[in-house]
């Protein structure tokens, strides 16, 4: 199985979820329709109210301030609605992002906020807070010869373990800022928004692979050493046990949705399952663009050291450091 579910859609979604798209008998239907202002209160069923979304066990409602609304239901449909004049591109951007994430939770799949490359069957993913550089680093590694696997969303199936964690690429296209395009040699596509001057673009990475499934071998949590002049420029520090679960909790895609749809217990159980099979580490490196290559060189060397035979199971590595 190369995708965890199939999708049909009544609008063009480009290549971003190409492996998921089928013309008939899809598991999930994406279509235009009426999206209510609020989820109906049925009996004493609990509704989770977020800033701009509502969730219960079956349904998820999301409002985006660009005039688009989504209703994600039962893991089998995403209905979109929009204000007059809002384009397909504006709909698709958030449909394949936040609504896609909610769909994964409804289908009992854990989306991680991560980008990554694949070596053999082993997926090495990079996660971190918004703006940490996940996409740029993964695209730049693809430019150095690694096979690109996913951008922004890594879909993890914690049920299907068999000694390793199966994961799927959530999006095959990148979204990159203009300067990151130059740093990664990715092929620039259209701007992600209709808004004039919006400097973020869809892009196809160099060495963009067709592979959409693999075993999750490592998760590197991107950070910066900027605060401490005495710290080494680049370092990887293995995380274990509860420490890695806590770190991973902040790497979940749309954590508020996870809490609203799954609840805390289910989320932390899934994270606990992941760390049984996956090497989790902090990866700190300089964050200024001028020093980008230092972190890239470091990541490349580390990935090259991961022999395919070692990567299907947790990697036994000591902490690695490059001194300033």
């Amino acid at each position: 199985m190369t995708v965890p579910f199939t999708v049909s859609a009544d609008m063009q979604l480009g290549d971003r979820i190409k492996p998921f798209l089928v013309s008939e008998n899809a598991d999930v239907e994406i279509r235009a329709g009426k999206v209510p202002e609020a989820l109906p209160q049925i009996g004493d069923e609990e509704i989770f109210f977020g800033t701009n979304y509502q969730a219960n066990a079956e349904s998820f409602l999301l409002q985006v301030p660009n005039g688009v609304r989504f209703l994600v239901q039962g893991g089998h449909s995403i209905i979109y609605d929009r204000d007059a004049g809002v384009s397909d591109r504006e709909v698709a951007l958030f449909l394949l992002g936040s609504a896609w994430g909610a769909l994964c939770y409804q289908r009992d799949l854990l989306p991680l906020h991560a980008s990554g490359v694949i070596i053999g069957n082993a997926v090495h993913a990079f996660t971190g807070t918004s703006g940490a550089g996940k996409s740029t680093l993964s695209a730049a590694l693809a430019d150095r010869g690694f096979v690109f696997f996913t951008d922004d969303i890594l879909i993890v199936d914690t049920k299907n373990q068999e000694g390793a964690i199966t994961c799927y690429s959530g999006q095959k296209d990148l979204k990159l800022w203009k300067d990151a395009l130059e740093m990664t040699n990715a092929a620039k596509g259209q701007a992600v928004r209709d808004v004039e001057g919006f400097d973020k673009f869809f892009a196809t990475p160099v060495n963009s692979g067709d592979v959409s499934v693999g075993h999750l071998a490592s998760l590197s949590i991107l950070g910066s050493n900027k605060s401490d002049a005495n710290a080494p420029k680049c370092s990887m520090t293995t995380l274990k046990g509860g420490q890695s679960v806590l770190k991973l909790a902040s790497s979940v895609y749309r954590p508020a949705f996870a809490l609203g749809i799954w609840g805390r217990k289910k989320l932390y159980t899934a994270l606990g399952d992941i760390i049984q099979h996956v090497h989790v580490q902090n990866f700190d490196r300089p964050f200024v663009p001028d020093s980008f290559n230092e972190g890239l060189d470091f990541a490349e060397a580390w990935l090259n050291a991961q022999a395919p035979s070692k990567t299907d199971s947790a990697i036994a590595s000591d902490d690695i450091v490059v001194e300033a």
Partner: protein
Amino acid sequence: MTSMSDTENDKILTDRKVAWLASYPKSGNTWTRILLSNLLSNSNSDEPWSDKIDLAGSISSSRPRFDNITGLPSSDLTADEVDILRPELYRSLARESKNRLFIKVHDSYHLNINNEPIFPTDISIGTILLIRDPRDVAVSYSHHSGRKNFTKTVKHLNRSNHHLSGDNRSQLRQITGNWSEHYTRWTQQTDIPVLVIRYEDMLADTAAQLQSMAAFLGLEQANDNAAIRRAVDRARFDKLQAKEAKDGFMEKPEKAKRFFRSGRSGEGKEVLSAELQKSITDEHGDIMRVLGYDF
């Protein structure tokens, strides 16, 4: 028996959890957060902070926090769209918090495109507005940004409707306005109570200013002189510098050599060219006079 009006009053008091610590950049906001953190923790430690400044609330412009709470990537939204969600974001923070929040703000007080205040009155305890002589701000802010000359920073201080970030990867757009607009927009609104604190007065008598802040925010430590003395001593500038030299400081921009650089007042008059000083006083003279900054 509790009357209806008492219940409503309790609810208002319970809902109002947020103290906004507002300032133009480099005007003592971080020092204030350290002082308040020390006062609230009342620790006997001699260091100004341990791992990080332990004050609930963080900064209003945190992009990761916006993304996590709204479930939308702020980097895929325009700054105006982000501002539509910011009031509800802060309400959500207040709802979820059992304790008082102290949220750092560089924005001036302003409305979003739906004419809703970015900083909601219904969750606000009040705003401590920290002010510093704009000539000193120009010098400090230039060093903070890793700039070798002061011209660009002065231009920012003078530019009407100036904003920070927006295209930055870690911070949301913050509409500061120019230095005078920042002051007037906060002091002319009447929805949120404002306490104005001058950086220069903090330097002259830190304990007295901290006591004013604590009283304004209704902190029980306001009358605890020993706790205030301890908090002030822990946050002495030489201790801040020593701690940064030893352990680094996570809020230091990568381009800056250090966060706690000089801390003193009067540097602007010494370092800025006469032309740049005149440009500042021409633009901000009226408000500078109101605040007692002579030129």
